C-alpha cells in the first residue's frame, strides 16, 4: 500500500460524492469520466494493465460518450430539483437514509473479516491460478496469461459476453429504431416530436461544416487511434489488452470520425447491414471454434493450429483469431450504440 494509491482512492470517493451532489447533468457526466480515469490509474497500480487499458477505453471513453449522446438527444442539461414537503416523502427519505447507514456499517464490518490486503495467504491464491500461470504457456501459447485464461481456459465465458453485447445492440435497436417508423398512435404529441426531428436534421450538418478544429484534429488523430486499436487487438496474446480493449479503441475511432466528417460518410462502409454481418460472422466463427467441446464432453481437443513459439505474433493457436472476432464485435457494438443514440439509426 503506497501513498499514491491512498490519494487516488480518496479522490475516487470525492469524485463519487461530487457526482451525487452536483446540479448540472453535463458536469456530473464529466466528473464521472474523470472518476473512470482515476480508476484506470488504480488498475495500473494494482498491476492489472489489461484492466487499465479496457477501463480507459470503455469506462472513461465510450460510456461518457453514450451519456453525452443521450443528453444531447434529450436536450435537458439542467437537473431540475423541486423540493417536496409531503410527510410521506420525508418518511421515505429518512428510512432510506437509515437503511444506507446500516448497509455501510455492515459492509465495512464485513470487510475486516477479509484477509489483509496484498498478502500471499489469500484463499483466491490457489491451485487454479497456479495452473493458469505455470502451464499456461505450454497449453495455450499466450504470453499474456489473462488472454490465455479468458480465450482458452474460459473461452465460453467470453463467448457469452460477446453475445451479451450482441443482445444489448439488438435491445437498443428495438428501443430506438421502432419509434422512428412506428405507427402514429404510438407517438404522443406526435407533431412536436416530428418538429424535434426536423430541427435536428437541419442543425447537424451546419455544426459539422463549421467545426474546423474538430475536423483538423480528427484528420490527424483518427488514423493513429485506429492503428493503435488494431495493434492492441492483434497483440492481445503478447501484451496487455486484447479484443475487448482494442475493439473499444477502434470503436471510439469510428465515433470520432463520424462526428467530425458526418455519419453519411461512415455509413458507406459501416451501416446497419454491414455491422450486422460483421457481428454475426464473428460470433459464428467464435462459436464454431469453441463449441466442439459440447460434443466431446467438455474435453479439450487440439485445434490443429500449431501453437508456435511464445512471443511471436503468429502464435498461441486460436487465441489470435478469437481476439480478432471479439474485437470486431466490440467495435461494431460501440459504434452502433453511439450512432443509435445520437441520431436514432445506424
Amino acid at each position, binding site marked *: *500500500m503506497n501513498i499514491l494509491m491512498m490519494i487516488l482512492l480518496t479522490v*475516487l*470517493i470525492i469524485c*463519487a460524492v461530487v*457526482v*451525487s451532489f452536483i446540479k448540472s447533468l453535463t458536469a*456530473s*457526466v464529466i466528473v*464521472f469520466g474523470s472518476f473512470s480515469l482515476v480508476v484506470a490509474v488504480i488498475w495500473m497500480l*494494482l*498491476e*492489472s*494493465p*489489461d*484492466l487499465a487499458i*479496457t*477501463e480507459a477505453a470503455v469506462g472513461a471513453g*465510450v*460510456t461518457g460518450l*453514450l*451519456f453525452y449522446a*443521450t*443528453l444531447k438527444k434529450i436536450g435537458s442539461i439542467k*437537473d431540475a*430539483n423541486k423540493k417536496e414537503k409531503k410527510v410521506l416523502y420525508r418518511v421515505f*427519505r429518512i428510512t432510506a437514509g437509515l437503511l*444506507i447507514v446500516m*448497509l*455501510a456499517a455492515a459492509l*465495512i464490518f464485513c*470487510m*475486516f473479516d*477479509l484477509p489483509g*490486503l496484498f498478502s*500471499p495467504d489469500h484463499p*483466491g491464491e490457489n491451485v487454479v*491460478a*497456479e495452473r493458469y*500461470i*505455470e502451464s499456461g*504457456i505450454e497449453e495455450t501459447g499466450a*504470453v*499474456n496469461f*489473462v488472454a490465455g*485464461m479468458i480465450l482458452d481456459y474460459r473461452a465460453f*465465458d467470453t463467448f457469452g*459476453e460477446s453475445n*451479451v*453485447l450482441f443482445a444489448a*445492440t439488438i435491445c*437498443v435497436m428495438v*428501443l*430506438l429504431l421502432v419509434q422512428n417508423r412506428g405507427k402514429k398512435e404510438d407517438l*404522443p404529441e406526435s407533431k412536436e*416530436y416530428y418538429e424535434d426531428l426536423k430541427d435536428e436534421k437541419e442543425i447537424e450538418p451546419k455544426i459539422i461544416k463549421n467545426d474546423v478544429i474538430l475536423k483538423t484534429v480528427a484528420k490527424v488523430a483518427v488514423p493513429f487511434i485506429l492503428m493503435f486499436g488494431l495493434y492492441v487487438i492483434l497483440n492481445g496474446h503478447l501484451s*496487455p489488452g486484447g479484443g*475487448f480493449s482494442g475493439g473499444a479503441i477502434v470503436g471510439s475511432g469510428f465515433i470520432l470520425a463520424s462526428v467530425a466528417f458526418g455519419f453519411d460518410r461512415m455509413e458507406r462502409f459501416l451501416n446497419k447491414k454491414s455491422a450486422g454481418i460483421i457481428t454475426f460472422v464473428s460470433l459464428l466463427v467464435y462459436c464454431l471454434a469453441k463449441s466442439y467441446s459440447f460434443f466431446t464432453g467438455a474435453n479439450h481437443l487440439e485445434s490443429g493450429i500449431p501453437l508456435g513459439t511464445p512471443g511471436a505474433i503468429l502464435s498461441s493457436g486460436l487465441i489470435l483469431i478469437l481476439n480478432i472476432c471479439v474485437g470486431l464485435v466490440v467495435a461494431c*457494438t*460501440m459504434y452502433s450504440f453511439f450512432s443509435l*443514440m445520437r441520431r436514432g439509426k445506424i
Partner: protein
Amino acid sequence: MWEQIYNHFNDIVAAILFVIGFSNLLFQKNLIKKIIGLNIMDVAIYLLLASQGYISGRLAPILSGGSENAATYINPIPSGLVLTGIVVSVSVTALMLSMTIRLYRKYKTLDLDEILIKVRKEKDNKEES
C-alpha cells in the same frame, strides 16, 4: 484500529463507493443520475475483486524474464472476471440510456416521480374511457 483500517483500505473504499452508488439509486430522482450511481456500484465491485487478486511485490500476469513460477505474478483470475464485468456494464448502461430516451420522448421529463404520476394519470384516463 488504525492499523486494521490501513490493512483493509481498498476494501473499505470499495464498500463506501458501493454505498454512495446505492444511495444515488435511492435518493436521486433524475434517471441519468441513477444510471451513474449504478456505474459507481459496478466500479466498487471491480475494485474489491481486483484488490483481492493483487499481492504486493508481484508482477503483472505477462511472462517476463522467462519465469513460469506462479509466485512471480499476481492472480490473473480477478483480472479476467473484471474484464468481463467492465464490458457488460457498458452494454447495460447503453440499454438503460436508450430506455431513458424512450421515456423522455413519451413523458418529456427525466424525473422518475413525475413519470410515475403521469403513468398513473394515463391509466386512470384509460379506465374512465
